[in-house]
């Protein structure tokens, strides 16, 4: 039989919240039932218990932080946990909204025994800082049942497990209330009594769902499960307990997310070229920061430095209530080779420098230079993505100015022509024809200018031989 491990997260939404202060009493309330579903240590210290109404709770503790229960948050967090666990164990199934089932049997060879396997899982879960209950059993439903009642034991002893399961009251199971009532009427109150009845007998008297339940609980029936397959991309959301209005204070929660990114990338030996940080503002549009690293980085420290530079130049209009980090371009790590004996050892690579500059000044402020084969002077020399390898062109050694004006300007100064004309007549094929006679001229102030005369005999200044 297959052994299963069920992880039950009793306060998942609470664990997912980012809290700056430790000693605040926080509760999560399900609005429909008006019942407290999750509470932290400090809240229980005040005497608040699960299932209490909000009124009772707030009368017990005056500065109680109340959050509404959100299914989506737990779902996302669960996904995150599964993603994180996937490195250790292969078959993961979700039990919404707060459970994860792991198939243990096929991982035992790899981890060399159940104890080692559990050790690995436990240690892997520790950095996430979430509370969980756990239990192993020989069927998914049994593992769920034991885990939800905080069994917290790892064992493969079949008899012991069966004994523990049998002690449970029917109300703890996932059976519908109607079925439980029916069973109670015939004197079946706990699982031991239910399991004592042969399945054939149950099938005679009850509907198929109970038969299925019993079959699955004992592991006699197959339990159809859908296993989790992780996506390659990295996307994490961090909800802030308190809204943050100061941009500088955002750095620490962002650092948390970046640390997660680092472990994600390091484990896969990848680097990210671009991350997108979305700041969700309360009652205002989201602010999206696109931070790119031309070299590609996996270190949280480097990303933090780049994000800090970008954060300097943004403004938020409303308080930020959550932050999403998305690694948009993840590629395999590329190793830059540095020759030990080449003498010069740069501590920053060109691409790293480029990322730093782009993060602070914006992408538009940094330009590269490229040469095209167009004969129009304004098109021959063009800006491009900086530091990209382009094909090598042969020099044709035409005398050209080193500085060009963005647009030719009418010539105002008095100049004397030194050399020329050089006629450039081209571009008739794409609707931007030019027919110009270029001259090299020297103005009275001694500047060497590149001027041209168009067909209407008007004179223009186009550059300087600086």
């Amino acid at each position: 039989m297959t052994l299963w491990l069920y992880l039950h997260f009793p306060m998942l939404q609470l664990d997912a919240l980012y809290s700056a202060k430790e000693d605040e009493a926080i509760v999560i309330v399900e609005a429909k039932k008006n019942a407290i579903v999750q509470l932290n240590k400090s809240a229980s210290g005040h005497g608040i218990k699960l299932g209490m109404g909000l009124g009772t709770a707030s009368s017990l503790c005056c500065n109680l932080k109340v959050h509404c229960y959100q299914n989506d948050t737990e779902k996302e967090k669960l996904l995150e946990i599964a993603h994180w666990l996937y490195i250790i164990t292969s078959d993961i199934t979700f039990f919404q909204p707060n459970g994860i089932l792991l198939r243990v049997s096929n991982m035992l060879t790899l981890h060399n025994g159940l104890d080692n396997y559990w050790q690995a899982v436990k240690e892997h879960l520790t950095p996430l800082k979430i509370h969980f209950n756990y239990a192993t059993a020989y069927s998914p439903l049994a593992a769920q049942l034991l885990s939800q009642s905080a069994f917290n034991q790892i064992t493969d002893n079949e008899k012991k497990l069966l004994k523990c399961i049998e002690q449970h009251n029917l109300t703890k199971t996932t059976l519908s209330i109607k079925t439980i009532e029916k069973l109670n009427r015939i004197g079946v109150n706990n699982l031991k009594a239910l399991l004592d009845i042969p399945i054939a007998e149950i099938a005679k008297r009850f509907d198929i769902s109970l038969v299925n339940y019993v079959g699955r609980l004992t592991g006699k029936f197959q339990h159809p499960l859908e296993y989790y397959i992780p996506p390659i991309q990295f996307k994490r959301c961090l909800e802030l307990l308190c809204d943050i209005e100061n941009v500088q204070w955002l750095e620490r929660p962002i650092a948390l997310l970046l640390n997660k990114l680092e472990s994600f990338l390091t484990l896969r030996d990848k680097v990210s070229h671009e991350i997108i940080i979305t700041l969700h503002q309360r009652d205002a549009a989201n602010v999206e920061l696109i931070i790119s690293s031309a070299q590609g980085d996996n270190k949280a420290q480097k990303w933090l430095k780049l994000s800090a530079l970008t954060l300097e130049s943004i403004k938020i209009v409303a308080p930020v209530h959550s932050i999403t980090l998305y690694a948009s371009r993840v590629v395999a790590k590329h190793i830059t080779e540095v020759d030990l004996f080449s003498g010069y050892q740069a501590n920053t690579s060109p691409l790293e420098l480029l990322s730093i500059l782009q993060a602070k000044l914006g992408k538009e402020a940094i330009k590269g230079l490229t040469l095209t084969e167009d004969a129009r002077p304004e098109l021959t020399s063009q800006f491009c993505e900086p530091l990209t390898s382009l094909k090598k062109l042969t020099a044709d050694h035409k005398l050209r100015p080193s500085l060009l004006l963005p647009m030719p300007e009418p010539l105002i100064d008095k100049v004397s022509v030194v050399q020329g004309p050089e006629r450039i007549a081209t571009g008739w094929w794409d609707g931007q024809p030019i027919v110009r006679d270029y001259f090299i001229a020297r103005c009275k102030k001694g500047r060497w200018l590149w001027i041209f005369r168009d067909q209407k005999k008007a004179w223009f200044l186009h550059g300087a031989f600086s």
Partner: protein
Amino acid sequence: MNEIIELLQRKNLVWHATGKKPIKDVTPSGYSELDEKLQGGFPKVGVVEVRTPIGIGELRLLLPNITQQAQNRITVFIQPPGFINAEHMHNQGLDLNNILIIYPTSTKEGLWASEQCLKSGACSSVLFWCQSLEVHQVRRFQAAAELGSCLQFLIKGEQTNSLSIPVSLSLQLSPHPYGIEVSIPKRRGGWPLPEFTLDMSLHWPALSLKKPSSNILLFPTAKAI
């Protein structure tokens, strides 16, 4: 005591006004005349101030040195007055893939970008077109340049700034029909030099006026009354 002085001398930190030529870490400028005056050329590392009007050939003066120093490192142009022409740079032998042009939106950003480039170690030369700079800013540049072993050219307008800033070398350029008129108001480890003419007609025949040949005498012409 003597040992310390010797050490300082060896590190070229003590300058004798009367002494012999100091052996400096310099790189040739590409113009032998200028190299002679500067005892070897531009400093390898540091800040060079160039006061010049735009368009008289100041870049043409600096480019041979920049090209020679590039060696797969980046050349950065910050806040140039106009577009840098790729064709000219390519013809001068500069690798276009290793050029960065930065157009900062404010002076503060320009200063920041300049310092980052200098201290990165990824750049060989940083050309920064700027107006006046303060002493502490230049000090920071100097320190950053040493950290990244990089040479910075501060290209400034011609207005005479009486305030002395701590640069390694200061050049004052003015136009001349055959090239550039250069004077050196300040240099580390040497006296200031008076104005001299740097003949560029060999390097740039098309960009210098024709010299009257020595074997031709101008025919005396009647002056207009």
